[in-house]
């Protein structure tokens, strides 16, 4: 059967007009929930990118005691040089470490002024050949004379990942609830549309309109709500990403993790298409349930 496109379009638009408030409620819920989904996806992308950088370059730092003697320091240097597991290492002297410290606390003069160069521990930054060897290498120095503490970049990355994981799970949870709400709202809008048109539907059945012919305008209405809501979310995510990126680029440029917390344009595009897909899906589910339950065709 050739579906008359003009008819379908006209019916869909008139259904939407009839229920502007309900339709906008559904649409906005889709938009809000998908914005959260988009946010979660982008945070995930950003963390992946930031941690990939770390992964290829896993670093451990051996902090010396501030008062460690020259021979103690040289012993460590020698040992690092002789270890086959160590791919590369670098000595960060007291003045260098102090510069780094000053940068990190650039906005907090109180902290900055509280320490002098002499109190800052120098350190060795070590790149092992294999990420798995990080711990082995580190443990060897933990009880060596003159060593203050061995810290692993991995632990810091793990901390970041676990924080963002928590954030993501929260976003996903809220988004899932809102998406379910959106489906129900769409279902309700369609139900109202069906109720408003019950006479037309009865006549259509009577004169032998096919079931799909009767359903399509209603289903299209739900699909449109999902799609427009998703498009709104797409826009919000796009703008939101620019704002966040500007912030990150503006301040604390020197903090390695932040610098690499980068979400590219293509990332946003892919995420956007995922959102559109989910929007269409939610709209279709809502309206399919509505026509099943309330359109006895």
């Amino acid at each position, binding site marked *: *059967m*050739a*579906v*008359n496109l003009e*008819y379908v379009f006209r019916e869909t638009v008139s259904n939407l007009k009839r229920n502007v408030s309900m339709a906008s409620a559904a649409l906005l819920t889709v938009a809000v929930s998908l914005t959260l989904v988009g946010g979660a996806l982008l945070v995930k992308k950003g963390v992946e990118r930031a941690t990939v950088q770390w992964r290829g370059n896993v670093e451990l730092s051996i902090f010396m005691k501030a008062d460690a003697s020259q021979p103690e320091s040289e012993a460590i240097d020698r040992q690092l040089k002789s270890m086959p597991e160590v791919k590369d290492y670098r000595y960060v002297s007291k003045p260098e470490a102090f510069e780094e410290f000053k940068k990190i606390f650039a906005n907090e003069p109180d902290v900055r002024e509280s320490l002098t160069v002499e109190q800052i521990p120098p350190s060795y930054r070590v790149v092992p050949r294999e990420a798995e060897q990080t711990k082995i290498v580190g443990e060897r120095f933990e009880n060596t004379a003159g060593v203050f503490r061995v810290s692993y970049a991995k632990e810091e990355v793990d901390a970041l990942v676990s924080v963002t994981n928590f954030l993501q799970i929260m976003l996903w949870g809220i988004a899932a609830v809102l998406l379910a709400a959106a489906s129900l709202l769409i279902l309700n809008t369609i139900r109202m549309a069906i109720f408003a048109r019950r*006479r*037309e539907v*009865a*006549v*259509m*059945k*009577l*004169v*032998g*309109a*096919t*079931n799909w*012919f*009767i359903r399509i305008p209603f289903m299209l209405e739900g699909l449109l709500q999902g799609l427009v809501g998703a498009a709104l979310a797409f826009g919000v995510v796009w703008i939101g990403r620019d704002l966040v990126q500007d912030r990150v680029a503006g301040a604390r440029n020197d903090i390695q993790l932040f610098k690499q917390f980068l979400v590219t344009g293509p990332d946003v595009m892919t995420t956007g298409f995922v959102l559109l897909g989910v929007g269409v899906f939610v709209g279709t589910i809502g309206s399919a349930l509505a026509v099943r339950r309330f359109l006895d065709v």
Partner: protein
Amino acid sequence: MIRLRDVNKTYKGNVVALRDMSIDIAKQEFVFVVGPTGSGKSTLIRLLIKEEKPDSGRIWVAGKDIGQLSSWKVPLLRRNIGCVFQDFKLLPSKTAYENVAFALEVIGRPPHVIRQQVPQVLDLVGLTKKRDHFPNEMSGGEQQRVSIARAFVNRPLILLADEPTGNLDPSTSVGIMRLLDRINRTGTTVVMSTHDSSIVDTMRRRVVELDRGVLVRDQARGVYGVNA
């Protein structure tokens, strides 16, 4: 054209609507179905368009066993059957023309066919001048004509009319009956349920009488009352 064999239909609460009903209605026949309210007349019509399913028995419409019909083919069955009701079932937001056109539109007829057939059928029912009037601007008789036009515009094989004159005064009813008679003469089988004895007595067509779901009389060229 229509054949029922041993059809039973009971609604919830053991309300018997039809009991062991068997009947044959030939092509081009005009049949009155009479009987008191609740005797099963409307159930018979609902069964024929498969709005209801019988509890047992078989029904053939236009040579097809509609019990065997898959649900997606039911619309195709209904395109062969025009339906007219006591309460017209017109869409209040559409004009006479649009109401009739709607019936063609929703079964996917192309616009040029609609533009050609709707004026024809409005002319047949005598409503050419009222084509742009809304239902609430028309008399009951005119509304019923629109409803008949809608039922007939697709040239169905069968026209089912469920008390089409039930809401109309006697003189208006005569006009409606003339119209149904004309439609019958074009070769369309007409099955009409009614309470109106004067109409049945005047037309002298086949009369089928139901009483509490049982077929109690089937008389060619019959009248309304049992012993007339």
